[in-house]
């Protein structure tokens, strides 16, 4: 008995020593090379020098065409309108076509996918839009790829676009894909420039290739600024289990864990789970970075917007708008092959003014990516 108690005591002591050791370890991170006191222990690289003339080469926007004759159909991914991120961005694009291109609201239709539905349900949804005369039709999300391949072949006269997929090879299908890793690089750089603890976090909704692009870009961007930075990357659900995009409670728990672990800026690419991440940031008095839409301005996040440092913008709205505009003008070949930084297809949000002080640095990184001086990976290295 006594033996066991002694053992327990020893174990307790040992763990205490380990804990102390850990604390000391994190405490003795080599001081910043530049000796920048305000930035704590984080060694930070200077921003790349602007490559000649590469910065801000925005592609001239096409003139607005008259789209008043078009009937525009949208098929959303799971969640539909009101997810505060991906689908809402597409909805914003549709609304912009109504406001600026003369699309008649009554001539638009939006349908949303159900959770775990079979392939044939996706096809039926697209066929419904075709049957009612919608043309063009935008499928939002790569889950529509196979169904769209079938339906596009059935209706060669209808023009389709699909967001996040470039595998459908049909003359009447326009892919709208994004360089998520480039935008994520910039917010990774922003996180590294803003962190006091030299430790940041990434929370992905589902561990699948699309979200791994966000992770890869974020990690590369953070390390480009501060090579020694600690990055804690976690996914809410494994591949194939899409609950991670719609589980605010889990997002909150995981984010709280990352904040407790020392991170003070957490970037989420987790759809509606992001709400939990923002709440955790508010509770911990730390910062978070939003995704897809400018989440500082999303009404649903009004009570937590003060923790939102910036958002990685994936301009699905721009892509939808440009696509409808191009269809109205009768030429979809003018659309970029990929919506990346060079066409402002991705980027970072400045609402709230929390990144104004580092905007020069971020824009330098942006110019370096556009000029090809920095290539951003699409797969996480670890």
């Amino acid at each position, binding site marked *: 008995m006594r033996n066991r108690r002694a053992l327990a005591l020893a174990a307790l002591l040992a763990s205490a020593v380990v804990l102390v050791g850990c604390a000391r370890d994190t405490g003795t991170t080599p001081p910043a090379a530049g000796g920048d006191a305000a930035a704590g222990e984080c060694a930070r690289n200077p921003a790349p020098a602007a490559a000649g003339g590469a910065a801000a080469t925005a592609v001239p926007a096409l003139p607005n065409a008259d789209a008043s004759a078009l009937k525009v159909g949208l098929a959303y991914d799971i969640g539909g309108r009101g997810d505060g991120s991906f689908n809402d961005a597409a909805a914003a694009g549709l609304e912009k076509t109504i406001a600026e291109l003369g699309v008649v609201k009554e001539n638009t239709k939006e*349908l*949303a996918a*159900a*959770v*775990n*539905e*079979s*392939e*044939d*349900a996706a*096809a*039926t*949804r697209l*066929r*419904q839009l075709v*049957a*009612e005369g919608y043309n063009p039709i935008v499928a939002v999300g*790569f*889950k529509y*790829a*196979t169904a769209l391949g079938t339906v596009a072949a*059935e209706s060669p006269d209808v023009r389709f676009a699909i967001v*996040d*997929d*470039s*595998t459908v090879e049909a003359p009447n299908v326009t892919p709208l*894909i994004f360089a998520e890793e480039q935008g994520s690089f910039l917010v990774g750089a922003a996180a590294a420039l803003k962190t006091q603890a030299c430790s940041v976090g990434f929370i992905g909704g589902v*561990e*699948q*290739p*699309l979200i791994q692009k966000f992770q890869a870009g974020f990690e590369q961007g953070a390390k480009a600024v501060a090579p020694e930075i600690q990055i804690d990357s976690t996914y809410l659900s*494994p*591949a*194939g*289990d899409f609950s991670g995009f719609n589980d605010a409670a889990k997002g909150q728990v995981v984010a709280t864990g990352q904040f407790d672990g020392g991170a003070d800026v957490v970037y989420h690419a987790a759809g509606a789970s992001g709400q939990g991440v923002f709440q955790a940031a508010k509770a911990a008095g730390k910062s978070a970075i939003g995704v897809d839409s400018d989440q500082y301005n999303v009404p649903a996040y009004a009570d937590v917007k003060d923790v939102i440092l910036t958002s990685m913008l994936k301009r699905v709205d721009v892509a939808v708008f440009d696509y409808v505009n191009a269809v109205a003008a009768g030429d979809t070949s003018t659309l970029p092959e990929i919506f990346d930084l060079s066409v402002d297809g991705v980027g970072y949000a400045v609402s709230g003014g929390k990144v104004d002080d580092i905007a020069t640095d971020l824009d330098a990184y942006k110019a370096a990516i556009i000029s090809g001086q920095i290539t951003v990976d699409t797969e996480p290295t670890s």
Partner: protein
Amino acid sequence: MKRIRSVLLPPALAIVFAALLCAVALVISGDSPLTALGAMITQVGEGTTAVDIINSGAIYYVAALAVAIGFQMKLFNIGIEGQFRLAACVAAIVGGALVLPPVIHTIVIILVAAAVGALWAGIAALLKAYRGVSEVISTIMLNFIATGLIAFLIRRDTFGLLQGNNISTAPIPESGRFPGISFGSSGTIFGMVFVAALLGVGYWYMLGRTRFGFELRASGESPTAATAGGVDARRMVIIALLLSGAVAGLVGIPELVGRDFAYTLTSPQGYGFTGIAVALLGRNHPVGIALGALLWAFLDKSALALDNVGVPREIVLIMQGSVVLSVVVAYEIVRRYELAAEQRRVSAQLRAVPVPEQQEVRS
């Protein structure tokens, strides 16, 4: 006559009751129930919906059979979901990797799926038989493990291939596919639909015409009586769960060899849980389950039309939920009513000879 009444009356009552409940919900939310019903019925004639109903009905049918095999022995296999997904994933990997002549290739894929389903259920079976672990708990947990295992199996560094933003297993070549009956633009009925029907016949034959089926039902009705009759209860548990798992393994196959030819991130889920509801709806009877599966598939597929008339699609979930609930309640009410009627009849017959009222136990 009376038998027909006791079999058909409860589900009919339940469906009417569930429909009324939905109608009330629709009226409260300001929509017209008749418009909704009309839209759903017209949808059957649109595009591929009729064929989709049959295809999905077959899938639900197989899932419900898997559940029903367990129910016969009072075993609740909630793990159909994990068993079918893992089986479909492994079968897709094997099917995509093998080079075999037609027919044989398809048969191998089907057998692999059944084996994987049985194996996954076998874990719960062994835990139940030798450690007394409730199969409810173990199969739920195995569902989660299956999700993780599938995520691992379709990683890019294991068996997954990147397809745009999706990941997929290697596609099954032509030789492994199961041809269906094409109706042109109205879709193609999976060849596996007929296999599902055969499974139903096999289930009926096994339960009603074989010694094993008798032992299965006997163990379910009364394990002690079965043991006294020489039935090895432990063996029955293992066989019943293995069989249930093997059938569950086939749930994902119709879509795999009939349409998708690969397992992807977006492969459908949830059939295992639908199977439970359909088995309850069909009272574990092969014909009842078939009707239940078709009803369920009709509700699922026609629901897509509700978006067009501005009725929330979720009304179908209310319908499905209340139909299952009311079927269970309706059978119980009819059973009690008939029990009381039986007692009255018996006591009337026995009135000449006064004896204490007998409690008749009916199965």
